[in-house]
């Protein structure tokens, strides 16, 4: 009997009935709806709004300002102070943190049961992933743009087109980070476990991206990690765009083209991974 289709199971009777009742799937509508939901939830949680706007400013002032006063890195070129060196790294940190917080909602949705009803809807997995990740991406981008607007204050002046390019690169990074967060959060059932993974995996990824210190002068193994870390390339693309008029400032980094290609490739890969785990049916428990 196993694997055998029972006679009459495709009877026209039920097929007709089914035809009338069939719900259709409109993936982009579903994506938009899930994205909108992320925003509404964000705005309704006041402390999240406060944290999201306060955090980047605090990071920039405390880390950049504090560390800049304490260290002088001879490897950092010319007139650039640490505060300024740290600026693109702050952008990256903000993108990363918002990605972490936004994908926690995957675990919350699972706990609240909401995810179950999304999963058994006719919505394809890719639309679920895009809805969830674009929501987090948009939130991260808004915060990062707030900081980017402050760039002239730390002495970075750049062309409006470069500014647009920087926003584009930040979008790619944010999407990649939220997709990675989704990928990790999908199989997890506790927020604590997720935090643990984030601390041991994602923060080092940020530290070894060139955000904190340049690759030149670092230990060999660190340079290897930095070389294979996709965030290095995202950050490199950002530095190139911020200093488009001063190529000397991005000396020693991968070229803009290579940086952008690697960043886009990494984002595509994490998105594909996120879709893969979301589509995977539940076996066992």
């Amino acid at each position, binding site marked *: 009997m196993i694997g055998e289709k029972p006679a009459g199971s495709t009877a026209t009777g039920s097929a007709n009935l089914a035809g009338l*009742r069939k719900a259709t799937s409109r993936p982009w509508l579903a994506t938009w709806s899930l994205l909108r*939901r992320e925003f509404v939830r964000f705005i309704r949680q006041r402390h999240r709004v406060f944290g999201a706007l306060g955090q980047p400013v605090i990071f920039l002032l405390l880390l950049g300002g504090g560390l800049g006063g304490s260290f002088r890195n001879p490897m950092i070129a010319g007139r650039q102070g640490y505060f300024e060196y740290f600026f693109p790294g702050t952008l990256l940190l903000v993108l990363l943190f918002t990605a972490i917080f936004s994908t926690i909602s995957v675990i919350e949705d699972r706990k609240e049961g909401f995810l179950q009803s999304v999963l058994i809807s*006719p919505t394809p997995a890719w639309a679920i992933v895009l809805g969830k990740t674009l929501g987090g991406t948009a939130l991260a981008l808004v915060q990062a743009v707030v900081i980017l607007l402050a760039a002239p204050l730390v002495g970075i002046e750049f062309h409006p087109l470069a500014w647009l390019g920087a926003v584009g690169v930040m979008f790619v990074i944010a999407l990649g980070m939220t997709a990675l967060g989704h990928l990790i959060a999908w199989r997890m059932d506790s927020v604590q476990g997720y935090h643990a993974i984030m601390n041991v995996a994602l923060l080092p990824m940020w530290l070894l991206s060139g955000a904190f210190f340049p690759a030149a002068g670092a230990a060999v193994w660190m340079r290897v990690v930095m070389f294979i870390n996709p965030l290095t390339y995202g950050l490199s693309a950002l530095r190139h765009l911020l200093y488009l008029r001063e190529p000397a400032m991005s000396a020693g980094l991968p070229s803009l083209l290579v940086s952008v290609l690697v960043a886009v490739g990494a984002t595509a890969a994490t998105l594909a991974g996120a879709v893969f785990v979301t589509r995977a049916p539940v076996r066992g428990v």
Partner: protein
Amino acid sequence: MPQATLNAELAGHTAAAGDFSSAIRVRSLSHSYGARRALAGVDFDVSSGELFGILGPNGGGKSTTFRILATLLIPDGGNAWILGHDVVRERDAVRQLIGVAFQSPALDIKLSVRENLMHHGHLYGLSGSALRERMEDALVRTGLTERRAEMAESLSGGLRRRLELAKALLTHPAVLLLDEPTVGLDPRAREEFWRLVNELRQSQQMTVVATTHLLEEAAGCDRIAILDEGTLVGLGSPAELCHQIEGEVITLRGPGVARRLAEISAEFGLALQSEGESWRGVTLAGHDVAARLADRLGNDLESVSVARPTLADVFRQKTGHGFAEAGQDGQ
């Protein structure tokens, strides 16, 4: 199923086709969680338009069956079809046909009643005026019109269930799956919930499958499947199942009954089983036996009663243990 009922089903739902097919067909369904066997080869059919109950104690396998039908879990073995579509191989087709209400309502508590319905509609491809009409309809049917603007987190347990039901109805499903839909509801809310489900079942011509661990709830279904330890121990209408027990159920209470079990068995042919503080047994001539027992046991007997068999007796007879004692290890 009697032929007359079957014909009525046909007339109601598949008149154009003239061919009858089960809304749900389950064959040799089995599943294990690690070493624990949750389902050990279960077969049953659900007819179109039926209110079908899956009754069993915790750990009996009903939630596993539900999760498989709802396309949330892939079984280790066997098959299940909903309106002719395999729940594993044609998962997407099945998802377009079913409405599901989960045991713990799958609501977004940070959204309002209306918003919950709206997002749910979007996931099923509904938008614009069509969605608005369906939302209105679902709100009216579930009596939530006045609450539309309230946040889901401010709703009581009963209202959350109703919202969950409204979500499931929004998509006009051909088959509605309910997992323990009345857990945590007081008896009045429970009664109201079932009245609503029955109304909707008739007006929307839905097939409804509900899991329950409540005997009185199962008694209200058209047909039930009784699961215990992953096997099907009974299948049929509550009346049919109860009729399978020939005779009547005698319940004895009293301080001395336990001492005289052997005597009662020898004299009256009555095999008694303990249930809490009372003893129950089945006999063909209930009232006669009860009267003679009362004479014979004297002060050892406190009370004796005779009743027609209930689903609890069916369960006891089929499994050898009481419904309340089963599945104590939880799920």
